[in-house]
């Protein structure tokens, strides 16, 4: 008999599940963050750090300030394992919730699949530090925000940094740079920009692919040893990064002449490489370390109350965690700015899009938020969705990252025409109306 009972319960659960019924309904004063997170699978290290930081900051704002302008922040996670189909499923499931603020998948693939959907639903989509480069052009991509850094400005930042070490861009002439890139759409995205910059500054360029996932790099490093470059740029992902650093050590290439890109800059990339990573430099938009006031607050208030999201509190202040916190800051500030115009209530996605298009955080405001030194500044406009963020370089000393450069600017003027060419081609292909002002 009890088996039948179980069966009945199972049938009930089944029906609940299939109907997609949401029993919980939101209060009027809530702003909801649907999170397409990934805590298992090959990229779990990035997922747990980033979404952990994001949730920690939302928690901090709720606990310390009582929300944003009295509006409580809520969220729910859906596991994607970084897979596009699962991300789409989570989108369709969570989009029915009221008061959605913005989507923040930390995945290029999922972001691509959502471009049409968020545009139809009029909810912003944020891809901090990554995403599709031409979504920087807000005239075409009204709801997509590759905040702080797109792959092209990242490339320009790296070349500018190397130029700085050599004593100016004119010294790049005749130098030799190898780009070691991950064999995926992400890895290939910057190939044309490196070619453009090589032509402009007159350095010799060699781009070498490492097949996914990047466990095997002997032949690539042999080729590097043969061509004796001045610098190697590491455009890696996941396991490829520590393997590259270890293989470089074995082949005798000096680690301080390897420059990592923004997805090769975390603790998870260098710690497995051990000694081989000591002296390695990588680009970042967010500094590592827990000494910044906002992180101190998180440690004290959120983790003090036992509400911290990271399983291992030692990861507070790591690169991915800080990136999640910074992502939280940008989302929350956009809501704050939009509230100043539309009122302190649950806003629609389109109103928050307006907030993002007016998202200005200068150094003074960053300091007021407890993030002075954590990141530099951002200035988003309706037609520039990247927001002129600055980048810094940090060096691994064997136990922690240290910032070793000023906050420097990529060459936005050089890149803008290429971005516009691509975005206008997209507009033509998809029949998108090119906006003339923020009200379009």
């Amino acid at each position, binding site marked *: 008999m009890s088996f039948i009972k179980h069966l009945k319960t199972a049938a009930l659960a089944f029906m609940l599940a299939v109907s997609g019924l949401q029993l919980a309904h939101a209060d009027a004063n809530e702003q909801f963050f649907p999170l397409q997170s990934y805590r298992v699978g090959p990229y779990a290290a990035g997922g747990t750090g980033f979404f952990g930081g994001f949730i920690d900051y939302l928690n901090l704002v709720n606990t310390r300030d009582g929300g944003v302008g009295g509006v409580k922040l809520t969220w729910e996670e859906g596991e994607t*394992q970084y897979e596009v*189909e699962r991300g789409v*499923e989570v989108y369709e499931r969570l989009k029915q919730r009221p008061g959605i603020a913005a989507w923040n998948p930390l995945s290029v693939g999922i972001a691509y699949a959502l471009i049409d*959907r968020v545009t139809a639903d009029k909810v912003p989509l944020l891809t901090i530090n990554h995403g599709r480069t031409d979504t920087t052009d807000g005239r075409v991509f009204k709801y997509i925000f590759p905040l702080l850094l797109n792959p092209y400005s990242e490339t320009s930042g790296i070349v500018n940094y190397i130029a700085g070490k050599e004593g100016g861009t004119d010294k790049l002439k005749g130098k030799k740079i190898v780009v070691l890139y991950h064999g995926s759409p992400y890895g290939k995205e910057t190939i044309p920009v490196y070619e453009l910059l090589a032509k402009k500054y007159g350095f010799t360029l060699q781009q070498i692919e490492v097949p996914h996932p990047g466990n095997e790099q002997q032949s690539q490093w042999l080729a590097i040893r043969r061509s004796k470059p001045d610098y190697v740029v590491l455009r890696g992902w996941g396991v490829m990064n520590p393997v590259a650093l270890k293989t470089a050590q074995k082949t005798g290439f000096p680690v301080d002449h390897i420059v990592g890109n923004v997805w090769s800059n975390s603790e998870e990339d260098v710690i497995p490489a051990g000694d081989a990573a000591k002296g390695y430099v990588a680009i970042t938009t967010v500094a590592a370390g827990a000494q910044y006031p906002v992180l101190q607050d998180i440690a004290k208030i959120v983790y003090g109350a036992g509400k911290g999201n990271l399983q291992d509190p030692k990861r507070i202040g790591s690169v991915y965690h800080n990136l999640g916190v910074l992502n939280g800051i940008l989302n929350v500030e956009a809501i704050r700015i939009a509230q100043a115009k539309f009122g302190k209530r649950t806003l629609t996605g389109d109103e928050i899009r307006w907030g993002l298009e007016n998202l200005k955080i200068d150094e003074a405001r960053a300091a007021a938020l407890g993030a002075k030194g954590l990141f530099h500044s951002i200035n988003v406009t309706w037609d520039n969705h990247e927001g002129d963020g600055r980048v810094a370089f940090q060096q691994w000393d064997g136990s922690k990252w240290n910032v070793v450069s000023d906050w420097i600017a990529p060459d936005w003027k050089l890149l803008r025409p290429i971005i516009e060419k691509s975005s206008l081609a997209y507009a033509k292909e998809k029949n998108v109306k090119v906006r003339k002002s923020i009200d379009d």
Partner: protein
Amino acid sequence: MSTVALPRTLPAWIWPLAVLGAAYGVVPFVASEYVFDALLIPFLALSLAAVGLNLLTGYAGQLSLGTAAFMAVGAFAAYNFNLRVDGLPLLASIGLAGLAATGVGLVFGLPSLRLRGFYLAVSTLAAQFFVQWALTKFSWFSNDNASGVIDAPALEVAGIVFDTPAGRYIFSLTVVTVLTLLAWRLVHTQTGHHFIAVRDNELAARVVGVPVLRTKLLAFAVSSFIVGVAGVLWGFVYLRTVEPAGFNLDRSFQILFIVIIGGLATIRGAFFGAALIVVFPLLLSRVGSFFFGGWFDSGVLDMSQRIVLGALIIFFLAVEPRGLVALWDRARERLLPA
């Protein structure tokens, strides 16, 4: 159920007709957006791919591990036809995409003239790797998009734009229905019987005058056409974006599992298997969290999913190679004894 009252002399086509009637007449009015976009549309696309593979593997006995590659060819071809030929109607580009997949399918079907079983399966792997490599290597296929990802055009047929979830569902349903009917028709013709003859005993088939080589190539061609169109549905209607990495070996295996679990050499099996594969993980996650709450997190979910799927495949291969369809038929016979 009211079906019990029906007279037993009903013709065989009444069941598919009833299902179609419900799919067109009832589902569009009752399903939610979520059910359309996250369940029904991927279900339809995967079912169609499985119908295609079933023709090749189930009926003609040619084991293939390159299904996802033919889906990729379909999706990228439709994108390029649509982009590069001005004013080409969407249905025409989908048809041409199917033909492009047919062409590639024929090329990779050629080894089947010499190879069998396991060796053929391994040689179809070449299709899997070659297509993915070519699509990433030559950026022309993705209109020089730097990261190799393409976007779907609007679904417009004769001035009607299918841009609502229900509209996309109707669009996929129609495509799937038409192609499934054709496949169903095909397996009941002489060519279909040739497929089965080649599968069951190639030598005997040759002796009774079946053109073995032609039959094998035809199986590859028809199968690739259907799978190519399924790729278009997957890319254009479901995800609405395509990258070559989305059509990897895992997807090929997924479709093969659908065919095995659903039932080899039945058209219905493709739909049964796809329903299980699409709905099962979602059900497992919700039912799991309903019973076990927080303990059933995504890690546990993923593991249990793999264990159950693996067990199911072994079960079906060992106990009921004819798959869910056989179970269904037996259940129906018990409930409605003749």
